[in-house]
């Protein structure tokens, strides 16, 4: 190896060692969140993220970055339009700006919101109708060694018009670090305890608790293809140990009048066993109920049954049917 090349290699290794020794110890403290237990529909609620920075930098080096903060909330809240994030810290206060959709997160190659969704998912929630939205402070802030600070990010957001149980997601990070999968120092994530929205009309949307039966997508119309799942592992029911689970289902119009009913134990109504005591059935409601062109389904009522149709399970393992309302909002 030529002396010049060797020198360059040593320099490179030295810089790498310096970065490893000193900058890796820099980072953010654990994220905690203050989230109320419940709110009324359409109420404007404040959530607070608490975190801090612990810069450990070799003097006279500095570390300059912008603050990132993200929230994961139900899509129906329309948080992109109405959420406002502000931060308070010894280094300054300000209002954060949503990162534009057009800006690509460099590590993942997709936009920041999608990158956060890919990285953090939906946490402890079981049903996905959430979006991650990532914001950035307009200014950069420069840290010196041991300049430890605490900061808060306040999130003000309307909670939407639907009754729901959800666990919300929060993230803080450092803009120059991006969303590197291996990084644990500069990205901190937390999910709230169960947050309840009450006082609205319509079914409770429960993102948190395992459901005996559920239909996805959460939002759909009768011309969508929907997936009905039955999870026999949630609790003991009359259908314990049944190998075959069938569906019996009614559809109603906007006025509440019965349009059609499918009550048979055939291949059409048999759910597919997908393992783990879970069963599912995909269908297109308009075709399933053989609707006329001008007919519209507003609501479904259904039970899961055994092969004879005599043993059946409804909502909360009662005689009440499971229900599903078709809507987009």
């Amino acid at each position, binding site marked *: 190896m030529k002396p010049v090349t060797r020198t360059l290699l040593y320099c490179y290794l030295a810089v790498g060692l310096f970065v490893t020794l000193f900058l890796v110890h820099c980072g953010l403290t654990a994220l905690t969140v203050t989230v109320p237990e419940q709110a009324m529909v359409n109420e404007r609620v404040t959530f607070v993220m608490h975190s801090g920075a612990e810069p450990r930098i070799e003097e006279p080096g500095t570390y300059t970055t912008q603050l990132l903060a993200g929230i994961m909330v139900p899509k129906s809240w329309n948080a992109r339009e109405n959420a406002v994030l502000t931060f308070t810290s010894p280094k300054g206060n300000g209002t954060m700006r949503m990162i534009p959709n057009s800006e690509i997160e460099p590590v993942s190659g997709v936009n920041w919101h999608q990158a956060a969704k890919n990285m953090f998912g939906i946490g402890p929630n079981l049903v996905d109708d959430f979006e991650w939205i990532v914001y950035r402070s307009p200014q950069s802030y420069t840290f010196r060694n041991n300049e430890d600070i605490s900061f808060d990010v306040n999130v003000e957001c309307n909670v939407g018009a639907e009754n729901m149980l959800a666990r919300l997601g929060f993230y803080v990070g450092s803009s120059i670090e991006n969303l590197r999968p291996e990084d644990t120092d500069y990205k901190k994530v937390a999910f709230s305890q169960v947050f309840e929205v009450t006082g609205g009309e319509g079914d409770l949307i429960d993102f948190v608790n395992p459901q005996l039966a559920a239909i996805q*997508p959460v939002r759909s*119309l*009768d011309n*969508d*293809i929907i997936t009905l799942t039955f999870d026999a592992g949630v609790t003991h029911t009359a259908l314990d140990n049944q190998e075959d689970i069938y569906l019996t289902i009614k559809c109603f119009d906007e006025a509440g009048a019965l349009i059609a009913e499918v009550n048979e134990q055939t291949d059409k109504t048999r759910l597919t066993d997908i393992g783990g005591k879970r069963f*599912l059935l*995909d269908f*297109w409601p308009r075709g399933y109920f053989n609707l006329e*062109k001008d007919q519209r389904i507003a609501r479904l009522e259904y039970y899961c049954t055994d092969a004879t149709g005599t043993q059946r399970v409804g909502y909360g393992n009662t005689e009440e049917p499971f229900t599903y309302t078709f809507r*987009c909002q």
Partner: protein
Amino acid sequence: MMKINVILPAVLLAFGLTALSSCEDGISNVSTAEAAKDITGSWKVVQLTRNGEDLSQRLDLTDFRIDFNPDGTYTLAEQLPFIANAPGTYSLSDPQYPFALILKPEGVQEDVVARFQFPVVEGERQLSLSFSLGCESNVYQFNFERENQDL
């Protein structure tokens, strides 16, 4: 010697021009125009995704086909989850570089539009259409392959 000095370049020039002109002919014979996209034929669904989730193995897609006829009309198999529920006419947003398939179903005033792609997958031309059926938040992608006309 003088004669050779004059004749040799002249001959070389003549050869060169001939060669050049033949090159031009060769180049001009290669069509650089993008072919118009021909989607006529009978197409069957080979893959169906909803919001990126593959439903192909979970749904019976055997009867799911659409016919695009040379006269600009299309027909559907009965009762399908599709953006149009009636036969009608079709067109592409651009004959050479289409990004959308535009359907005019009979009895419907407004056009219905699907995002159009025309990739070659494992040697087979596919017709890939993306659209929403119910809520806009639910996006479906239907990938079709041409059916063997001899069957």
